[in-house]
């Protein structure tokens, strides 16, 4: 199958690569963009580990092909922290021991980002329902629920505290398709010369 040229933005930086149409977006992010924070658990849309934000909305990146994200604006877990300063949601996970092995954590974090954007003052039941699409095989759910509740408090106490991550408004009825759109990155978005504008090589190494 011929390769397709794909250009998209991740965490404000532009990435270009070539991939077969069957390459999932998750594999493209990991192998071609070199951003391995996005994890793959089940690869069929059950575990939620590969959850990212596409144009501000959570999607399972194992259930999309990279070609479909042409021109899209993505946020992965690498886009949350500000240098060494953790995002308040990450900090809450840390403080409340919401990760054990940590494999599922990137997906939980991205789910939490969208959830707290939509519902800044959730009840515990709402938190549990919102997290139902993410699996933690360590079964550390109790502390994850606590962390999300604590993050909601932190974010409410400090308005504007890193709330801008992936906060594109949900589509309205008049514009109901989450069509990828081209946008300028945030001011000062760093373009990484290592990846920007040139075809990334496929990395070798063991298969998952």
């Amino acid at each position, binding site marked *: *199958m011929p390769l*397709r040229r794909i250009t998209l933005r991740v965490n404000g930086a532009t990435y270009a690569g070539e991939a*077969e*149409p*069957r390459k*999932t977006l998750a*594999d493209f992010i990991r192998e071609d963009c070199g951003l391995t924070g996005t994890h793959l658990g*089940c*690869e*069929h*849309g*059950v575990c*939620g580990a590969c*959850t990212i934000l596409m144009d501000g*909305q*959570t*999607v*399972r990146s*194992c*259930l*999309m*092909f990279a*070609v*479909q994200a042409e021109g899209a604006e993505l946020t992965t877990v690498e886009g949350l922290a500000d240098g060494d300063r953790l995002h308040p949601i990450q900090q809450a996970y840390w403080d409340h021991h919401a990760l054990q092995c940590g494999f599922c954590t990137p997906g939980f974090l991205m*789910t939490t980002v*969208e*959830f707290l954007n939509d519902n800044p003052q959730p009840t515990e039941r709402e938190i*549990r*329902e*919102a997290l*139902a*699409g993410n699996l933690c095989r360590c079964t550390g759910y109790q502390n994850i629920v606590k962390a999300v509740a604590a993050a909601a408090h932190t974010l409410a106490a400090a308005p504007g505290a890193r709330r801008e991550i992936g906060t594109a408004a*949900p*589509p*309205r*009825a008049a*514009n*109901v*398709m*989450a*069509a990828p759109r081209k946008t300028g990155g945030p001011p000062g978005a760093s373009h990484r010369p290592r990846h920007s504008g040139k075809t990334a090589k496929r990395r070798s190494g063991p298969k998952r």
Partner: protein
Amino acid sequence: MKPAPFEYHCPRTVDEGTALLAKYGDDAKVLAGGQSLVPLMNMRLARPANLIDINRIESLAYIRDDGRTLRIGALTRQRAAERAPQVAERCPLLRDALRLVGHAQIRNRGTIGGSIAHADPAAELTAILVALDGEVTARGPKGTRVIAARDLFVSYLTTSLDPRELLTEVSFPALPAGAGWSWMEIARRHGDFALAGVGVVLAARGGKIAHARIGLTGVGPTPVRPAEAERLLAGRAPSEDLWKGAAEAVRAAVTPDGDIHASAEYRTHVAGVLTQRALREAWERVREAA
């Protein structure tokens, strides 16, 4: 867990999409939200030679309210419909059920048309379309046709759509003024496929049930419309005995399979219990609206 190779097509218009379907027919699958198709491809249970990705046909994403009917473009995301004020106003039954379709991450991609065309026997939207006597519009080589919900669902994952046809629109009739509604389902986990689910609409006149509509999911190869239960309710005054009688008629109408999640007997029992609860809630909403 990687899909087999395929030829990728990305039409921008319905005409381009139908032309591709006319050309590739049986060797093609339409990719909409991909929340059911891509898992099947990743597990190589589906290996289409051609994938026709309709996600860039922007004209297929809309919600139109013509007063009596909600016309929803096939590519409208489930999450968008769930949040649309027209859906809340005209068909709150649909909104309530949408909240239980998978998880938010799935509904952000999953489409109204995709769910209908996939025809999963445990899907929420198929049961609602059947209960409301909705219809779909499809375009193919022979032109455009409208298919009534009762003629659409054939069996497990099988519809009467031709492989060369593209589903373009799903029409949900609005609930009658003052009607009560309820969606009830039981799943092992929030967002999982329902073991059984039921949607109910009660239209009222003079303190009695003018007519009832019931649609069930997860209890047979296609969504179930229990005609006998609806007949039993029409023209009657509401009562717990009446709900119980309707629940019995529902149990007689369903033919679920058993699997590792629940036995056939359990699903049958639950279908009745959920019907009773849904009728009770729907009638409460009739009284609130009055």
